């Protein structure tokens, strides 16, 4: 289910004194099964952009085409796309409202008019996909930990069986374990179900771990894009935008400055370890 964004411009409060252009002439295609990261400073238009992916906002100019269908073409097209593109907002646990975990996750599938047996099957499957057991079904979502509540909220979207998952800062405010759990489940959903995952994040570490391709936004425009390695190796441009490559990439640059022939395309601790061992052992071999 490829997504094509063409010449998208979005202006808030057009024609009023508060008029503000949040997204300017953005063209972007998202392939099937991609793991795409979107980064950029606050106010760069990331959230506005992704709200177009399932038609929550309508472009002021340009168009959004999902699976060959222009979202502006008809109400039916929009409704179909909303089922296929699941959007998870910042702090989604604030939108939990039902008395039990089961009811909360069941809300979406019930609205699709599915039978009770199918609803139950979907709820259990979705909870499993985020690592939550059936023993939580009858619990109040408000008794759970922050990380668990957030996973219940994500399960509510997964129960709609989307093809594309769009997440805005899914790990913000979580402790390291909660963060690692969410990232692990997203990786698995992508790997096992082939879901397309679009991740908006301030955490360079999170995108370094998860995203294969990165788009960098600034003042409503895409200013840099490429594979995650390519983008993070362009430290000067990122720093000009107030972004910083992840610590391991910075470490490699510093070693390179000191004359060590390490690769700059390093994103994770494990990759840094292998690269340093390769260079150090190579020197000893000489």
């Amino acid at each position, binding site marked *: 289910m490829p997504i094509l964004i063409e010449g998208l411009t979005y202006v808030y409060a057009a024609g009023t004194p508060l008029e503000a252009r949040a997204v300017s002439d953005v063209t972007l295609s998202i392939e099937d099964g991609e793991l795409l990261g979107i980064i950029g*400073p*606050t*106010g760069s238009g990331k959230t506005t952009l992704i709200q177009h992916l399932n038609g929550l906002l309508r472009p002021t100019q340009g168009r959004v085409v999902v699976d060959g269908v222009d979202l502006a073409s008809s109400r039916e097209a929009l409704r179909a796309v909303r089922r296929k593109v699941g959007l998870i907002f910042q702090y989604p646990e604030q939108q939990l409202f039902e008395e039990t975990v089961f009811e909360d996750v069941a809300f979406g599938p019930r609205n699709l008019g599915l039978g009770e047996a199918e609803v139950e099957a979907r709820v259990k499957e979705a909870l499993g996909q985020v690592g939550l057991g059936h023993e939580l079904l009858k619990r109040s979502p408000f008794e759970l*930990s*922050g*990380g668990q509540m957030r996973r219940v909220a994500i399960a509510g979207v997964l129960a709609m069986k989307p093809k594309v998952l769009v997440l805005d800062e899914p790990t*913000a*405010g*979580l*402790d*390291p*374990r*909660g*963060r690692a759990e969410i990232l692990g489940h997203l990786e698995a959903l992508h790997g096992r179900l082939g879901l397309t995952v679009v991740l908006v994040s*301030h955490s*360079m*570490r999170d995108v370094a771990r998860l995203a294969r391709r990165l788009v960098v936004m600034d003042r409503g425009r895409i200013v840099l894009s490429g594979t995650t390695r390519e983008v993070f190796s362009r430290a000067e441009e990122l720093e000009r935008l*107030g*972004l*910083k490559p*992840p*610590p*391991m990439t*910075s*470490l490699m640059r*510093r*070693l390179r400055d*000191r*004359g*060590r022939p390490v690769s700059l395309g390093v994103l994770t*601790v494990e990759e*840094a*370890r292998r690269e*340093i*061992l390769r260079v*150090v052992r190579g020197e000893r071999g000489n």
Partner: protein
Amino acid sequence: MVRAENVSFRYGAGQPDEVAALFDVDLRVAPGEYVAVIGPNGSGKSTLAKHINALLMPSSGRVVVAGIDTRDPDRVWEVRQAAGMVFQNPDNQIVATVVEEDVAFGPENLGMPPAEIRRRVKEALEAVRLLEYSQHAPYALSGGQKQRLAIAGVLAIRPRCLVLDEPTAMLDPVGREEVLRTVRRLNREDGIAVIHITQDMEEAAEADRVVVMDGGRVVLEGTPRQVFARADLLRELGLEVPQVTELAQMLRADGLDIPPDLLTVDELVAALCPS
């Protein structure tokens, strides 16, 4: 500056659904010290912080701030003047529609004369580098600027200690850096003690001392080097160590001659490239 002695706290104490949140917590923070508090969600960090500001009172034990027992009902405002608190969400802490009025809110509540209020507002906005925004509307500020405004609001009452509860969690990297730089400067140049709750181990590594909480107890405490050398224990608690420390420990296990307690990129570069 801050002394928590055997502090235990139960939410809804005496009710059938009471929940114990702190057990026998001891914490001492010296004047001018920078202490980071880390721990998994639900470990009691925020509950402890609220005791320092007299937002919560111990069920047993006591908390003494600047020599005042927080349970003394006549001196709650003195406690809050000595220990100012900044929370996670910048949007929930702003009360006025103009930046300087927001900062003036605290001193006004303390009944200060207008000339003194003006002086303090100017000083506080200067300290967080927001003086040029004094006539702006807070809603139009960036996240980092809003958090600096929240800090200025606290500074205007001239606290001797800042209690920061995950102040950077909702900020982008620029905003995060702005806030951290501001806090470090207030600590080093003005000698304000800082108690900084964080989920970011790189942030904690910059403190003088790190306190680790789990299940309502302090389970580990020491300099960042001492604490992050205990990577196995931290991982068991669901925490982590800074990535540089993790890498240094791996390389050491691989047989390279590298100390196990490195905290920064500079230190690791120096260890790998001895000059």
